[in-house]
Structures are given as C-alpha cells and as structure tokens.
C-alpha cells in the first residue's frame, strides 16, 4: 500500500482528449495508473492517496481527455477499473481499498478535525490492535531517516530508521498518522484501514513553495530573480517589539539601529545595503501596497515582511525605491472556523549604559580645581567649601553627593496585550485585531501608551470579482519632559554631585555652590516631572481594493487608500521654584528659558494613493508568461498649526484660553505629488530558466517642469540548476539557483520647491523700530532650478543553495550600487550672503557589498530539533565623482575616493612628555604644555593647522552581522539572536564626552588616568576643562572611538503546553515564554550604549534599555 502526494504546484502537461482503454501491462500509448494519478495531482493541485496494491499493474490509454474538475477526471480514470475514491478534505482524495466489507468502512476521520477522536473502551482498543508498517521517502524516492510518525490525537508514535522504514502498533487501522521531519512538510495520512504505507514527503514549502510578497503582487520564492529578504510572523513572534521598525533587526543586509528606549519614540534607523545617498537613506515602506509609517503598524498585525534590496525587485517602485523597499503584508483571516489568538507580555526595562560620572562632590571639586590650575587659573571651589562637604557627609540638602543617574533612571515596567479574531466562510474571510501597549520610561517622567486596531475583510463577491478593505489605526499617547527629552538628557549630563535633589519637605532644593559656566541649576527632577508635554498621534490607513478577473487571463485590480495622520502636542510650562537651604532664597527653576505658558501644536497629513494594475498570467506548455501594467497617482499633503500663550495665574489651568499674554500663532502647509506608469514582464521555462523585466516612469512635483520625469528600468534572470537533469539525481542538492539582475532606481527625497528661491517671511526676519514690529523678508537659501532625479543603478548576483534536503541553506549575494546625480544640500561659502546652499545633483557614490547567509536546521535524536543561522553583510562605500568638489562637515569630509562623510581629523601621535618635545615639534599653540596631545605635521610646514587633517575612520559600519541559535525539545523552545556591527567609529563631544565642559561634570577616568608628570603613560592628556582649554579637544583622531559591537539582542525560552491538556479547556495551543532583549553587549565603547543613533555629536540621547519580559500566547 502507498500514498502519494503530488508536490508540484504549477502546471502539468496538458491532457488531451482520447478514448479510455484499460490494460494490465505497459503498451504503446498507455501509462501506469500511478503515473496518471501523479499527473492528475499536479494538474489539479490536489493530493491523491492510494494503496499501492490497488493500483499496481493497471495501465490506461494516455493522454486522457481534459476535464474541468478533478472529480470528473478521477471518475473517468477509475470507472473502468472498478475503483472508487473519496474526498477526504479540501484537495485530498483517497482511492478506496476494494474490500468485501467496503460498505462497512467507518466514517473517515477528517484529518483536520480535532473532535473526531473519541475515547473508546480499553477492552475494545486491545481487541483491535493492528500493526502498521511502511516507508517514508523523499521526492526522489529515497528513504528519510528520523521522521517522526505519530498517531493523531493518540499517544502512539515512532521514528523511521536509516532506510526510512517504520512500524508501530495502533488500536485500529482507522486513525490518522502524522509524519513530520525537519526540512519537509508535515503530512497527515488517514489509514483508511490500511496496514502498510509508502509515504512521500514534500520538501518543506518554506524553502521551495514559499510565496513572497513582491511589488504589486506575490511570487513563488523559487522564482524570484532579485534580492529579496523575508521574515514571517514566526520570526517576529513574542519579541517585545514596541515598534515595527525593530522587527527588521537580524534581517540580512539590513542595518537596523535602535538608538533609544524612549517610550513612544523608540523607532529604529533602517539602512539597506549601506549609504547610497547623502540625503535621506530611509527605505520606502509599503503596508499592503500603500506607503505608510512602519512605526504605526502593530508588529502583531504583520504576517510577513519582504525587503527588496536590489533594483530588479524594487524598480517597480522606481521613484522612491533607491534606498530599498520594505513590503509589509498584514494578517488576514483563513476560511474555516473562528480562531481567537491572544498574546501578552509583561516585563521591565533597565538602562544599559550611562557614563561613569563622578558623583562624589569632593572628588568632583578637587578635580575641577586641578583642571583649572593646569590652565593657569584660580580654583573655583575654595578649600573651605571642599572641607564643608567633606565634613558633612550626612546632610544631603546642603552638602549632597547626588548620584543623579540613580535618582533619574529606574526600572520601568511595560506590558502589551493583543487579541485577534479571524476566520471566514466560503467566500469571505476576516481578521479583527486590537492591541494595547503600556510602557513606562526608564527615564523619570516619560511613558507611552499605544492603542491599535486592525481589520481586514476580503470577499469573493462573485466568481470574477473580489473586494476587500483593510483598516488599521494606531493611537500613541506619549508623555515626556516639558523641555523635551533630548534637552533633559543634556541637563542630566550637566548636573553636578554638589547639587541637591529635594528638601525633606518635598520642595525642590537649590545649590548654594556657585559653579561658573553652570550658573543656572535646573533641578532635573523638576524638569522631568513638572508641567506636561504630551504627544497624541493618530495614524490611520484605509485601503480598499477590488480585483476583477477579465477574459484572456487578465486580472484588473484597483486600490484606493487614505493614509491619515493627526498629531497634537500639548505642552504646559509651569512656574516652579527651588529653595536654597543655606540662604533661604527661593528662585524659579528655568525651563530652557520658557516662561509659564501653554503651547498646542497640530500636525496633519493626508496622503492619497490610487493605483490600477492589469495582470496577465498564462501557461503555454512549459512556458509561463506573466505581465503587469500599472498606473499610480499619489498626493501628499501636510499641514501644521500651533498656538501659544503666556500670562497664567497658576499651574492649575493649562489650556490656551486660561492664559492672557503674548499670544502667538503659526501655521502652514505643503503638498507633493507623484504620477507613475509601471510594468513588469516575467517568463519562465519549466521553472528552470527565469527572466523578468520591470520599468517605471515617474513624474514628481519636487522638480521643475522639464526635469521632473524619470525612467527606471530593470532586468533580471535566474537559473535553477537543481532542476537540470545533471543535478536532479544528486541527492545532496535540493535547490540551487543562480540569479543576476540589473536595474535603475530613483530618489526625489528633497524638500518641496527646492528648485526655486524662496523669500522667507516671519518672526525670524521681523525687526522692531521704536518698539513696534516691522515685517521683514529675506532669501535664506540658494536654489538650483536644474535639479532632477538622483538615480541608483544596482547590479546584483546571487546564489541560493539548499543542501541535504534543505537542512543546510546558503544564500550568497554580490552587488554594486552606483548612485549618480546625488541630491545633496551643498554648503556654499558664507560670502554668498551666508545662504543655505542649494540642493544639487552633486556626484556619484558607489556601494559594493557581499552578503552571506547560512542556515542549518536538523535534529538530534527523536525530539531535539535545533537550528542555527549566520549572516554577514559587507558594504564598502566610496564617492566616485563629486565634480572636483569637496563637501565638509564639522569633522567630516566627503570627497572623491573616500567613503561618504569620512572623518577628517588632525592625527594625534601621542602626548607631549616635556618642553623639549614641544620645542622640537611643529608649532601647535602658544599654550602647549607637557601632557597635551601631539598632532602630526602632515604637510611638514612646521605649523599644525587645518591642512594637517587626515581622512580616517568610518561613520557607517563596513560589516553588519547576526547569528541565531534555536532549539526545540518536547514542548520547550529556545531561541537567540545576536547581532553586531564592525569597522565603524564614533566621534562624541560635549558633556561627559569631554571633561568639565562649560561647567558640567567629569567621568571618573579623567581623575584617575589623565597625564601628570607622575603618570606619563596615562591614556588621557592632562586634565583641563574642555571649554577653557580647547587645544586638546580639537577634532583629532585621539577622540575617534571604535563603536563596533556584538550584542545578544534577544534570547527567548518558551514552553508549549501539551495539547492533550489544553484541549480539555478548549485551547488548541498555549505557550508561555520568557524573553530578554539587549541582554549582553560586547564593545570597546562604553560611554553610552554602542547602538547609538548619532555616530557623531553629543551624548544627549534617551538611553537604551535591557528588557526582560514574560508572556503568554493562546489560540482558541
């Protein structure tokens, strides 16, 4: 006996009409019944099961007449053989065994039905025990060892031996066996009274039959010729993702940087294949085909994510695809009974890194005096003051040693809940979901709540017409410091240990110690908690589509979508005082210069998208042809409006109308439009040779007439070597494909009307004569009327291999990305009216890279499954042409032959040890002393100046990599995700990055490891204040820091409760898990979290967090 399931899901050979003849031996013009059944399975996309003995030795005339339905075809084939079939399930047919008692065959158990398993009396069970044996083969007829064979709903089970054979004893021959193995699709086989089976397992669809979302449609992954990275919901499941941008972390070739853990503002920067341009490098994000904000889609609503990395995949989105395209498919319902999913997690976050600040007042003051003495200045803190602190360690109101980090950062709880109902009838499917996230901030005074709803309804209105509507809405309610969290962080990195927190009666305490440069003590507890600063944002996507099947294999589809955003910021700055206990003086706390006032701002967006596509799919024998033509119009509208008032009598009433003085109002709006025509043509022969063309013609309102149209074509080809005869029988090779693509993409991400000189008007240009306001106007920036599209040409070569029944998968990509006519805001000399420079098409950049992914999944013993994955992406960036220009940043340079924004710094060559060394060295400064940094005289002219700068370091990582390890044992599952970046530097300045910066504090290392004559080998130069002695803090390689890191991004342990247990309470699946995020980090850079957003600049960023959560997911 045997069962065969046809695997191929495309098309079989056309079956021609013919008369029906039956024979028992092969003759000319006949085929074996087995072959015919296999072909029927292929043709009609169904599985046909049979017992080998019933069909062997039967031959039929071939070809057979074509039939519209599989039932008719089976009738035709089986009629004269005296065989019958039964439809077991959707798409599953069983040839019934011919037995005398055939009529008494019990009702067949429905494989998918849980309720068919009924307990029976023990005695009956024993009496009917039967032995079942068989063989499990792969699609090449080779036995598969280690396949798990289990009786569905029962306890009996076994594993196949080295030849793929198995045997087990069952209560009867009417149950269903479940065959499962890594790398193969799980198969359920009803025994239907048989005691001997040959089972053929299909290679895992995930590897071969997986459908991926591509531009304006879907495609079988095996047929994809471009470079597309995908993840599914399993990858995303149960990670505490507060933001969908974080979901991309760990995807090959995608650099995701999550710089902060600020609730409601913890989005990530996403870079696909390096920096292609000098402007925005953000990829285009499309949710169900519509441009949308990734942050505002609930991670729990995501079914799959496709990242289109090369031009061939992305060219159909030509106009905004140059930085890559991220396609999000949201979850939809499945036909069948109602399914309810609930999942949640609760946990807490802790800050990862903070500078090692000195929080002992005496150490801080003595250090400051030492720094000033090194500059030849008087001490700021008298010995009397220092002694007062030393002798009063237990008086924190007057003589504090405040550890401000302990005061302001704490463990913060978070929780999330998601609920989904999904299901569908024959014609209509639906999915409705709701989510709730509540995240408290690790920084005092910050928190956020997110409420999201989603709904997806699709209905086959008629045989030809399908319609659907996806709705999704996210509401964020976020609170932060009244002065904004960035400025609060600035203040937190500025407060001193000598400054007190609260009086014992709860009043804000003030300091009596004067610190020049830091004259205004802004008590950060008040800054963090007083007043209010709330951001309430609502984003909604309504996406309506209709699809109509036309004659001649054509399908017409229209999508209309509204992407609506409304954000309201409400801020109230209070008047709060602080009390200085020594003098008894009470003074107001400064909120960044803002008086007691109310501010309310509204930002709106209304983006409309409409696109029409006409799709053609045709199979002609071994040839498959597909085509797509489309038209799209998109309109983007944004508006803002804000109002402000002062003159409040107290802190109680915070609305605009409760204030009376200095009312201010501002408002404006902007508009952009895009108009596009696009198309695709693809062809394959036997799914062996694949070819695809794409084009898009785009018009953008961001360019002047005459420069606004761009044409973006692409071509790609694939060759599936594994389908060739010479590889078909190589058992080790399950899949092998070569891909090549070339294409061109566009970028128009510049602000609107960059092509025309604007005359600005407004408050910043007004002047007052005799205390009366006089309206002013001025041109503030220079414009280039000739700007046009920036184009990116990408060549991509790829190799996909699946080895050993796809237990080992390998993907290798090489690409070259040439961006030309880069749009860049150019700095022009100040002499030209100190205008902001124009946006111009300035030059060309080349990115070359290699990406490698290796995944391995296998099994040890019977129940221990494991998987391991590794990927690494290398990208090298070089400016190839800037028309001879050089673009300078404050400490960076962009010029031909170097990476974009390379650091451009004086080259430090150690520390001066004595006066003789200074005299012998090129002149640096009058003030140079031993202990100062020595800079190399690169041009050898005896003087150190800007001409001695060298290009060094990288502001973007050359390597990004990640690896995963996971395992399952019985109900337990375990997974880890490590990721890291390498060959990347950061340059930080300002408070705590530099010592005593304008009255700020100092990190411990400066007090213990800075140069003195006694400590000549110190790491740091002599201790000075950063502001008072800038010589050592000039932009130099001394302060360039390697910010490579490796981090255990995620670790998760879960346990799925036994189904037998959960089913008793009506739960089909229940899993509990614990999860850790950012658990371990390895990096030389420890000043703040290495996954920082600003690779150069200050440290003033809301810190990152380690997150530990525990959760539950239940399916009813």
């Amino acid at each position: 006996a045997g069962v065969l399931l046809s695997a191929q899901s495309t098309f079989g050979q056309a079956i021609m009409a013919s008369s029906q003849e039956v024979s028992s031996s092969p003759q000319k013009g006949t085929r074996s019944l087995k072959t015919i059944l296999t072909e029927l399975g292929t043709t009609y996309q169904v599985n046909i099961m049979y017992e080998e003995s019933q069909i062997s030795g039967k031959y039929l005339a071939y070809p057979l007449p074509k039939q519209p339905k599989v039932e008719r075809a089976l009738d035709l084939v089986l009629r004269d053989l005296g065989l019958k079939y039964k439809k077991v399930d959707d798409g599953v047919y069983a040839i019934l065994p011919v037995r005398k008692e055939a009529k008494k065959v019990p009702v067949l158990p429905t494989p998918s039905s849980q309720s068919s398993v009924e307990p029976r009396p023990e005695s009956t069970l024993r009496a009917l025990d039967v032995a079942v044996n068989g063989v499990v083969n792969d699609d090449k007829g080779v036995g598969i060892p280690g396949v798990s064979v289990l009786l569905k709903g029962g306890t009996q089970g076994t594993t196949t031996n080295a030849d793929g054979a198995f045997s087990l004893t069952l209560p009867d021959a009417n149950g269903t066996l479940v065959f499962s193995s890594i790398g193969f699709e799980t198969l359920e086989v009803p025994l239907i009274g048989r005691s001997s089976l040959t089972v053929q397992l299909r290679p895992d669809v995930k590897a071969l039959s997986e459908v991926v979302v591509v531009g304006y449609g879907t495609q079988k992954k095996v047929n994809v010729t471009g470079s597309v990275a995908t993840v599914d919901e399993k990858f995303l499941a149960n990670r505490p993702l507060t933001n969908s941008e974080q979901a991309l972390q760990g995807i090959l070739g995608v650099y995701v940087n999550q710089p902060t853990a600020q609730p409601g503002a913890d989005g990530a920067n996403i870079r696909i294949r390096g920096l292609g341009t000098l402007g925005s490098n953000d990829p285009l994000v499309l949710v169900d085909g519509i441009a949308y904000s990734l942050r505002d889609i609930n991670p729990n609503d995501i079914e799959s994510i496709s990242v289109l990395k090369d031009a061939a995949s992305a060219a159909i989105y030509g106009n905004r695809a140059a930085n890559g395209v991220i396609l999000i498919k949201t979850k939809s319902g499945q036909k069948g009974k109602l399914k309810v999913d609930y999942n949640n997690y609760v946990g807490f976050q802790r800050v990862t890194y903070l500078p090692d600040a000195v929080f002992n007042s005496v150490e801080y003051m003595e250090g400051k005096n030492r720094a000033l003495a090194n500059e030849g200045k008087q001490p700021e803190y008298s010995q009397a003051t220092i002694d007062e602190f030393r002798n009063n360690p237990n008086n924190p109101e007057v003589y504090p040693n405040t550890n401000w980090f302990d005061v302001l950062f704490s463990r913060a709880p978070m929780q999330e809940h998601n609920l989904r109902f999904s299901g569908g009838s024959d014609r209509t499917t639906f999915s409705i979901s709701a989510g709730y996230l509540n995240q408290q901030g690790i920084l005092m005074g910050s928190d956020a709540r997110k409420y999201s709803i989603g709904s997806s309804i699709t209905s086959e209105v008629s045989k030809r017409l399908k319609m659907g509507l996806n709705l999704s809405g996210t509401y964020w309610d976020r609170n932060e410091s009244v002065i904004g969290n960035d400025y609060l962080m600035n203040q937190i990195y500025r407060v001193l240990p000598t400054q007190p927190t609260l009086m014992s009666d709860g009043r804000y305490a003030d300091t009596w110690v004067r610190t020049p440069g830091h004259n205004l003590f802004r008590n950060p507890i008040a800054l963090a908690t007083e007043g209010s600063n709330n951001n309430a944002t609502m984003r909604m996507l309504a996406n309506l589509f209709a699809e109509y099947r036309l004659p001649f294999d054509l399908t017409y589809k229209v999508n209309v979508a509204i992407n609506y955003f409304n954000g309201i910021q409400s801020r109230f700055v209070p008047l709060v005082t602080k009390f200085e206990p020594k003098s008894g003086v009470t003074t107001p706390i400064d909120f960044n210069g803002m008086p007691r006032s109310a501010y309310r701002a509204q930002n709106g967006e209304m983006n409309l998208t409409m696109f029409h596509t006409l799709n053609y799919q045709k199979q002609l024998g071994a040839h498959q042809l597909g085509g797509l033509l489309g038209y799209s119009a998109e309109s983007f509208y944004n508006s803002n409006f804000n109002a402000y008032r002062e003159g409040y009598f107290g802190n109680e009433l915070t609305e605009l109308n409760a204030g009376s003085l200095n009312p201010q109002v501002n408002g404006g709006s902007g508009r952009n439009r895009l108009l596009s025509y696009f198309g695709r043509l693809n062809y394959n022969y036997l799914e062996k040779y694949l070819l695809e063309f794409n084009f898009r013609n785009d018009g953008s309102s961001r360019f002047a007439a005459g420069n606004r149209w761009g044409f973006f074509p692409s071509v790609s080809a694939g060759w599936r070597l594994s389908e060739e005869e010479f590889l078909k029988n190589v058992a080790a090779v399950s899949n092998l494909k070569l891909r090549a693509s070339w294409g061109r993409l566009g970028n128009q991400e510049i602000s609107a009307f960059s092509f025309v000189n604007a005359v600005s008007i407004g408050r910043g240009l007004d002047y007052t004569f005799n205390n009366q306001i006089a309206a002013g106007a001025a041109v503030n920036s220079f414009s280039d009327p000739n700007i046009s599209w920036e184009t990116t040409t990408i060549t991509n070569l790829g190799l996909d291999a699946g080895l050993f029944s796809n237990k080992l998968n390998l993907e290798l990509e090489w690409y070259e990305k040439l961006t030309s006519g880069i749009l860049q805001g150019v700095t022009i000399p100040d002499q030209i009216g100190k205008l902001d420079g124009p946006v111009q098409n300035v030059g060309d950049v080349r990115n070359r890279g290699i990406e490698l992914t290796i995944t391995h999944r296998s099994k040890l013993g019977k129940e221990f499954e494991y998987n391991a994955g590794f990927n690494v992406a290398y990208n090298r960036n070089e400016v190839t042409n800037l028309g001879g220009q050089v673009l300078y940043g404050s400490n960076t340079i962009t010029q031909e032959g170097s990476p974009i924004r390379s650091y451009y710094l004086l080259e430090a060559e150690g520390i001066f040890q004595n006066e003789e060394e200074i005299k012998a060295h090129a002149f640096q400064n009058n003030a140079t002393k031993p202990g100062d940094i020595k800079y190399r005289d690169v041009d050898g002219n005896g003087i150190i100046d800007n001409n001695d700068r060298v290009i060094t370091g990288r502001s973007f990582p050359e390597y990004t990599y990640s690896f995963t390890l996971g395992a399952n044992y019985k109900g337990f599952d375990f997974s880890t995700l490590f990721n890291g970046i390498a060959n990347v530097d950061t340059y930080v300045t300002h408070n705590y990055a530099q010592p005593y910066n304008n009255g700020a504090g100092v990190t411990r290392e400066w007090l213990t490891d800075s140069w003195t004559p006694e400590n000549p080998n110190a790491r740091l130069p002599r201790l000075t204040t950063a502001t008072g002695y800038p010589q050592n803090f000039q932009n130099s390689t001394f302060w360039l820091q390697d910010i490579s890191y490796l981090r255990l991004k995620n670790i998760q342990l879960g346990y799925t409760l036994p189904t037998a247990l959960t089913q008793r309470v009506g739960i089909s699946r229940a899993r509990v898990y614990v999860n850790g995020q950012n658990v371990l980090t390895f990096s030389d850079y420890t000043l703040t979290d290495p996954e920082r957003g600003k690779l150069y600049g200050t440290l003033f960023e809301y810190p990152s967090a380690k997150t530990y959560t525990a959760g539950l997911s239940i399916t009813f």
Partner: protein
Amino acid sequence: CQESYLDLKPTDRYTEQNFWQNEEHALAGLNGTYRALTDDFLYGSDSPFLLEALSPNAYNYGNTKGFNIIAKGNHDANNSSVINNRWGSNYRGIGRANNLLANLGPIPMDEALKKRIRGEALFLRALFYFDLLNLYGGVPLILDRPLLEQGTYPRNSADEIRTQILKDLDEAAASLPLSFTGANKGRATKGAALALKARVLLYHQQWAAAAEAAKAVMDQGTHQLFPDYRGLFYLENEGNAEVVFDVQFKFPEVGNSYDINFQLYENSVPLPDLVNAYLMTDGKSITESPLYDPAKPYENRDPRLKATIITPGSQFAGAPVTATTFVQTGFSQKKYSVYKDDVKPVELLTSGKSELNFMYIRYADVLLMYAEAKNEASGPDASVYEALNKIRTRAKMPPVAEGLSKEQLRQVIRHERRIELAGESLYYHDIRRWKIAENVMNTNLYNHRNQVIDSRVFNASRDYLWPIPSVAIQNNPVLAQNPGYGK
C-alpha cells in the same frame, strides 16, 4: 493634465519670481536686512560685551563663543567660534542688502521712498563691511545679489573695502533724512551715515576728514547728550537724542541676553584695570588724588564708575552686592542692564528676554571722535576742549585741564574714550588702532582682591587682525590668510 497635476506652487512663502513687486516687498526686504544686525555674533545675545572682553576692560572666563582664547592669544583659524561665525554673520547682512539693492530698481513705487530705502540699505552694507574690515582686514568685495561665483572671489585689499564703505556712506548720507518719527524711528539717518563715516575715517587715521564728518553730525543739531549718564541706558529712555544709530530689540519679537550675561553668566565682567582707570571726582587718578581711600576704593570716583560697573559693597537690583556676588573679578557690568540699583525685579530676564537697544553710535562718541581727530589733525583748539568738556560736564566731572600739548591731550582723549565708552564694544578696536594692544594685553589678569585669575598674550606681528576662518579658506582656497596664521 499630467503636467498640471504635478505643477504645484508654494502657498506659505513667496518665491523670487513673485516677490519684489511693490513697496511693501521693498520695505520688508529692508527690515530683514536690519534684522541681520541682531545676529548672536554681532550685536545680539551677549556679543557686544564679549568683544569688550578682548580688551583690558573685561574678562570672559569661560571662553564663551571662543572669545577668551582670542584674548589669551591662543586662537587660530579654526578654534574660535566667533572668528568662524562673525565672518558669515556680516556677509548675511551684506547679502540681504545686496539682494534688495539689486531688486529695488524696477519696483514701481514712490521714488523718494525708493531713494531712502536705497540709502538705508547702503548704510547697513557699509556697517557690515566695516566690521569685517576691522577684524579681518580686506575681504572679498561683493556688491551684486548673491551668486554662486562670489564664493570663488579672492580677498580685496583693505583700501578697496574702505573706499566702497565710504562711497556707500556718502550716498546714504545724501539720501537719508535727518530724523525719523513714530514707527520709523530707529532707521538709519543722515547723521548715522556721517557718524559711521567719521568712525571709518578715524580708524584709518584720516584725521581731518574724520573730524569733518563728525563735525557735520554736530552741526546738524539733531543730536545732543542725554542729561543723565546712567539714565541714558535705561529702557524708558530708548531713542533719546543722544542715539545716533542703535540696534533695536523688543521682547518677545527680538530679544537679547544682556541681563543674564551680566547678572548670572558673568561671561564678560569688568576687570580691575578698568575700575582703577576711573578718575577721582577731583579729576586725578587714584594714585595721585588724596581723595582715594583704599578701604573704600569705589568712593569719590568718577560717577561713571558706578553707572557702568557693579562694585562690591554697593546695591544693585534691590539687593546688596557682596565680595562674592560676582565670583570672577568681583565686578559686573551695570551699563546695558535694565535693572536699577534700588528696584528688585520680579525675575531675572533669562536668555533672549532682554530688550534694551544697543547704541552702535551715540553722540558722545561723535564728540570724542571729533576731539581725537581734530587734535590729531591740527592740535588742541577750543573746539576740542568744548567737545571733551561737554562729556565731562554731563558726567559731573571737572573739565579737562587747559593748555595741554597735543600729546598730552591725546592721552586725555584716549582715557576719556575708554571711560565714557566702557562696556560698549569699542575699546578693543581702539587699542588696536592706537597700536597699544601689545602693551596692554600682554599681562596677567587679576580679581578685585588682586589675585591672578588668568593671563593674556598679544602677538603684535599677528594678533592685530583675526585669521580668515579655516572654513572660509576650505570652501574657497583662493582666500589668502592673514600673516602669522595657519589655514
């Protein structure tokens, strides 16, 4: 249809295609040019007083905006933010004036008003160029509307810049009215153009011409000294007859940070060297006068001392000033603070909230310029004494001793200038044009207790001019550097 769908025009701003059409546009362009004066590195924020901290009059302990590093002689072409930025701040004003001048011609409007607007724009352009000339020497001379190719121009000579400034000022003087009233008060007048011309000529030692220009202002009869020296700087007396040209501030539209600078930040605090320079009420110095009591060093002094400087032991803003109120030198600047000695303010005006106008040129300066130029040109005469004694009288100080030689009078005039105009952003220019910076700047600095707090170096072969900013040379390598500086 395709193209019209994509043809959009900005709705929240004008473009150069639809601006410069009428009188209101022209006036708005002019007002925007005035606004460039309030730049943080020019006359806004606390910059006028930080410039004073480059002279022996004041001290900037925290190297705010990179000023102290200049005072210490440790500056280079790259390490001082004011050197990097003041260049562009002036060119911003020049660019706005140039754009207005280039577009003004065809605008259909009242020709008299057009002439006046042109005069004001020329005055402002001259003012901005003069600051560049003073600090950097010759700079690229740009008179056309902003164009990309201007970024490649080399430096013009100092003489070429000066010639253009004087030409602009002459035309401005010929175009501008003697005075304005109402909502126009504060615009550049004929007197302002002439007074600035006098300053330009004075700085270039063109004594006779300078005296003539100053005299022209004096002869106009439009300006006179305000009777009360301290009251001259009160908010309620803004726009009095002593003001020749001021940069106007008004909170909340256009504020400065003068008060918080003086009261809290102490970014520019008077030095004992200045305090000690104030004469006794008998007209003698503290070393010569019997009135001086070291125990009460601030008594019986030129009244301008207490009008200009907050001293320990005095009362200010309704509170006693102790020896530790101002931690840097013990002193702070009173002139240009809106607070009065005996009135306690509701709250300290924080950054951007002070609104006292900054007098760019006042009539006392015109008198002093006249005295100096006349004395240098033709020696002491009655008109020189008259000008000086007007100032002495207003200050309630005895008149200048008669019968002094030209050289003696030169010292008196220089001293009077230092005292009368202390804290007004002029002394740094004076010590450089008098070529005495290397004598007065190579010194230690002291606080009021005579403790050394810092030291300064002035390299006479280099520091009389600022370096051309590295960034400017980087963007336009044809710009030659000033002697002694790297690139």
